[in-house]
């Protein structure tokens, strides 16, 4: 069973597999990404800029939780 599980197909967003702690991200795409916030459609850039502080902790949650 363990071998079967190991051979099961795996899919990844990144072509080179999961890079768990890499800080190499597409910042331009991230800032440009369209999101809904408080009922309005805006860019993540606007959301970051509207907040307080110079740092942001982003929590990507699964299925809303």
């Amino acid at each position, binding site marked *: *069973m*363990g071998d079967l*599980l190991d051979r*099961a*197909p*795996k*899919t*990844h*967003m*990144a072509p080179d597999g*999961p*890079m*768990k*702690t*890499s*800080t*190499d*991200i*597409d*910042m331009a*795409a*991230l*800032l*440009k*990404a*369209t*999101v*809904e*916030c408080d*009922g309005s459609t805006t860019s*993540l*850039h606007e*959301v*970051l*800029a509207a*907040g*307080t*502080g*110079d*740092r*942001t*902790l*982003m*929590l*990507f*949650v*699964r*299925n*809303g*939780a």
Partner: protein
Amino acid sequence: MVLAAYAPVADLLQSHSCQTIIVSTSSAKYSSKFAASLGFKIPGTVVIDRKRATHKAVRMRSSVYASLVTPFKKHLKTFGYKALGEALRVSLRNATAGHGHSWQQGGLMVLEHKGLNAGGNATCKWAWREEYPGDWLPVHEVLRDALGIDDAPQISFPERLDFVIAARNALAAGGSSPSSTSADPRAPQMCTEDVCSAPKLRARLEANEQGNASK
């Protein structure tokens, strides 16, 4: 669970000039009802990204295998094959449109963005991409390693599960939120399957913590 885990440190983060943004793939309607049914304040600003553009930009993992199989493969000795089959069945049955993307994994990012309004840049200073559901780092380690906050309290995920259940029960008993009543058929419902029961979830969380402690 992630929201409940970060709720106790929301003020601490703010006091260190760090805002918190929560990225969800759920629908706005589902997210709103979910938040109303929690019974505690969400520890940040919620943004909804149904198209997962942010997830793609930061290269969060998306995987059926990681969502359904890996959590139980990691803890197969604890739960056995019967639990794996049951989890597969429950996961597929609960995969409704409003829930969000079932195969998208979560994670954490710390961005620095001084003077963003005045044309400044943003940079990613720290990242954690979950390999499977529940692949969480201890909260105090995140705050220490990612943000240099050394005085964060240690958060117990099993305790947070108890907190979530108690908060939901209190809210339901008080009836202060219309969306939390069972009379609203659109309100998110607690899964009543045995595999999602509090003892089973608690066992999973405790196994996770033991796994983290032994790393």
